[in-house]
């Protein structure tokens, strides 16, 4: 395409010189160089209607004034839109005839979820169809724990009837009986179960922590440490021989499967219910505690937690990490599900509905997109992990604009107005009032302690950090 920058060298005739007013009459022949901006519209307009419009850019900062204020406005709009589109609830899976007590993610299939209820029933769900694929009566009484074998072909359940059962993942054919592959009769009630990541070994907990070989009917190893009962057990996903359990004497105990005695334990002020290892930084684990908090520990330094996660207003019952290890989700007795960043003290998100009762178990799906919560009122709920995210495939431009607004939100996150909007959540009345009350109580305690400190001899009353407050002792 040819453009005409009219740069011309020009000799003019005398006549034209004389005709112009401002020319001095002495110079009869003159040379001047002139160029005037002259754009060829063909370079700036599309050729046919089938083309897309041309958008020539010039990134010169002087052509784009107010860049900070404009970016701020964009960030503010993006934040507001985020709240507008925050519709996290996707579906409710109903079918259980009693409260959902435990859930298990399938290890190889994203769309499969297993759930066990308080009446001993186990259901296998197809999440993409949002329907129940298979129902089986696994135990008498509660199904206490459930885990899918690493290969994904079978799963284990433990129940109040003192049995461990192994089931096939496949639905039995027409006319076949729904029967477990294997049944182990234990001596005491089992309360939790986890499977080894690579080997045919699993661990149960009850009155003691037992390590079982799949081929044998008696445990290959049993751990006790002066405690009468454990509530949950969990294998480390990276150091696969390590496992941790929560005991009823308010302690969290670490074990090495290869050793005969437990490694160490930390005793806290209140009992921990469950714990979950961070799948990416597997030396961290987070435990859900009865004192409304969650604690993230480094397993090497148990003397104080890395972070205390506060926001729940009742006992925290379950916790599960996202597969990226950046966030985790917690379920609480206060009828809410909260999402915490792994190193943040407060939750970034809270999910609740009018109908959801005490949430007993929660899972973060393996594709990092969904959260599943099982609650007392017999339903399993499917949530988006990111409340305002658009589901489905994004067009490239859509993705680009989302990334851009994400970055802007991050850039301006500390501006008061933007922070206010991002942090605002509607809460159920009782949660709202209770959190307010808790805040007042905490403030009063802090004030009192500060007063005590102020009026006693300097150095006699130490400053105790929030992290150190909840740990009683570490035993090795």
């Amino acid at each position, binding site marked *: 395409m040819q453009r005409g920058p009219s740069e011309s060298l020009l000799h003019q005739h005398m006549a034209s010189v004389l005709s112009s007013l401002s020319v001095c009459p002495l110079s009869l022949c003159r040379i001047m160089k002139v*160029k005037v901006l002259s754009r060829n519209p063909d370079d700036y307009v599309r050729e046919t209607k089938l083309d897309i419009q041309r958008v020539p850019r010039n990134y010169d900062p002087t052509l784009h004034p107010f860049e*900070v204020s404009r970016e701020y406005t964009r960030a503010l709009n993006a934040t507001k839109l985020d709240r507008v589109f925050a519709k996290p609830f996707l579906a409710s899976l109903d079918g259980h005839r009693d409260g959902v007590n435990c859930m298990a993610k399938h290890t190889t299939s994203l769309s499969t979820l297993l759930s066990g209820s308080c009446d001993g029933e186990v259901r296998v769900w197809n999440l993409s169809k949002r329907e129940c694929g298979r129902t089986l009566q696994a135990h008498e009484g509660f199904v206490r724990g459930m885990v899918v074998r690493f290969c994904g072909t079978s799963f284990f359940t433990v129940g109040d009837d003192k049995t461990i059962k192994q089931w096939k993942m496949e639905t039995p054919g027409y006319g076949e009986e729904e029967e477990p592959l294997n049944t182990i009769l234990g001596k005491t009630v089992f309360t939790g179960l986890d499977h080894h990541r690579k080997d045919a070994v699993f661990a149960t907990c009850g009155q003691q922590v037992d390590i079982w070989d799949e081929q044998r009917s008696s445990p290959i190893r049993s751990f006790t440490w002066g405690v009468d009962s454990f509530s949950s057990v969990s294998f480390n996903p990276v150091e696969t021989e390590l496992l941790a359990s929560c005991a009823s004497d308010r302690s969290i105990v670490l074990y090495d499967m290869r050793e005969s005695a437990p490694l160490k334990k930390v005793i806290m002020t209140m009992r921990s219910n469950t714990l979950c290892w961070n799948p990416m930084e597997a030396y961290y684990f987070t435990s859900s505690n009865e004192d409304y908090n969650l604690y993230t520990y480094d397993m090497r330094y148990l003397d104080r937690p890395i972070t205390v996660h506060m926001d729940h207003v009742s006992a925290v019952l379950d916790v599960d990490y996202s597969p990226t290890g950046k966030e985790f989700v917690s379920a609480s007795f206060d009828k809410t599900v909260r999402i915490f960043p792994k190193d943040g003290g407060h939750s970034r998100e809270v999910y609740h509905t009018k109908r959801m009762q005490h949430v007993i178990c929660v899972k973060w799906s393996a594709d990092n997109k969904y959260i599943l919560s099982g609650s007392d009122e017999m339903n399993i709920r499917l949530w988006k992990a990111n409340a305002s995210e658009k589901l489905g495939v994004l067009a490239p431009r859509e993705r680009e604009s989302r990334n851009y607004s994400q970055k802007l939100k991050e850039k301006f996150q500390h501006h008061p107005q933007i922070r206010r909007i991002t942090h605002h959540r509607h809460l159920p009345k009782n949660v709202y009032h209770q959190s307010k009350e808790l805040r007042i109580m905490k403030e009063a305690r802090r004030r009192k302690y500060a007063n005590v400190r102020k009026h006693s001899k300097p150095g006699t009353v130490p400053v105790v950090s929030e992290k150190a407050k909840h740990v009683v002792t570490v035993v090795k």
Partner: protein
Amino acid sequence: MAVPGEASVDESHVGENKTPPGRYWKEKQEEGKDGQQTEQTLQQKKKKKQKAKKRKQKEDQRDGKKFISGKSDPFPGPAPIPEDRVQKFKRKDKIKKPPHQHYKLRDVIARSEEASEMAQKQAARFDLLLPEDAGFLEGDEDEDTCTISQEDIAGAVDITSGAKYFNLKLPQFGPYRLDYSKTGRHLLLGGRRGHVSCIDWQSKQLMCEINVMESVNDVKWLHSETMYAVAQKKWLYIYDSNGIELHCIRKFNDVLRMQFLPYHFLLATASATSFLQYLDVSVGKEVAAICTKTGRLDVMCQNPHNAIIHLGHHNGTVTLWSPNQKEALVKMLCHQGGVRSVTVDKTGTYMVTSGMDKKLKVFDIRTFKPLKSYFLPAGASSLSLSQRGLLSAATGDIVQVYRDVWSTPVTKPYMAHRVRGTAWGLHFCPFEDVLGVGHGEGFTSMLVPGAGEPNFDGLDANPYRSAKQRQEWEVKALLEKIQPELISLDPSELGRVDHATFEQRHQDRVQALGFDPLAKEKFVPKYKKKGRSSAGNVEKRKKQVAHEDQRDVIRKTVEDKMKMEKEKKQREKKAAVLSNQRSALDRFKK
């Protein structure tokens, strides 16, 4: 097969240390070789040093790829970018790295700096590829460009550009005020005696023409070419591009001058009753009404960099206003006698004023200091600055254009042109080398080579946009409308850390907690085994740390002292230089 004699000449592969046995016929060569070897070893040493230097350098070296053939890339690494281009896109200086204990912050800063550097380089690269070049006008060796007439220029350039020089003869309703739309495509003319017309001036197509049957003080395009505001004798009116009256705003009376802030969607008006009012044209609300208490306001301009309104007054002051404050932000005494015209350049650095004292002054409005002062025999009645910094001044019926008024002392105008009547309004057309002059006898469109920005940004102001593109742009622009509260003297203030508030909050926190959470922790020596934590040892370690701390303090004070001394020396030197100069009065000394 190699001949044995030749083989001995070749370098041995065994090792460099082993020298071949001496042969008398090879002595000279050996020496030469030795020299080479020493050079080689030197080079190797150098290489080792370089290796130790920095990982970054290593990466640079690696960029010069070696091919299998043994050739190396003659132009290794990324293509160089001219420094001035990179400088153009520089937003701020590098931040000093925080100390090691804030390793997370360090990391964040390093990443963000890397990203901004990359963006800067990319933008600079892109800048090299921009399609258009700015216009220029150069005369003969001994010829002033101001003597070149418009007809000559129009005749010398191509036909389309030549057609941009034209006169509209409108003697009936003059003198005319004018305004170009933001894209530079549309021209709005408002005659004193009520004639209002809008023209697509490049195709010379008349969009509408009305007579409002009332005196017209000023005309202004709103955000796009579909609407414009006309300040009439009594009220402010909004018309659309078909000439249909959309609004009559009775809250805005006796308006003399108007400015439109395109990113805020604010129409600022200055009235004869000394009121400065802001109208939000996106919602139709009055944002602010400020009584300036300075009499009739007929000199007004905006700072396009920070959306501050500049008003010129009869007592020679120029005041700066934002809608958030009832008082002037700044009052500057610029002239003896009244201010006739004010204008501010695109970057918000320079303000040019002209006054009744026939002076033309240039101010730096970052520091509010005068830079240059010129004397114009006739005085300038109205001023206008182009996108590339050309200044046009109307003195009676002559329009003069100056170049570089703030950097070099100007003696001659760049261009001059005589229009038919007294010039009433001046406006450079954005993105074109055109200056519009409204005068008593109509309108003149002048060619001023080098006035307009050659490359426009399609997402900001696109002269070639279609109706659909305009609609899309309008929606986007409305979505990112800047709130009037954000108007301040420094528009980048929003992106900076508010230290004052932080300090206040920190103090409150210390008060509430009863201790300072950010205070430096007292050093507690670690307990060490095998008898290394004896009382003496602990005390020694404590002392070491204390010593280090003290050294830091001392180092800092010494540095400060050195700096002070250096400054003092420089000052003395300067004073000495000044005192050494011979003054005219020295000859009377004895």
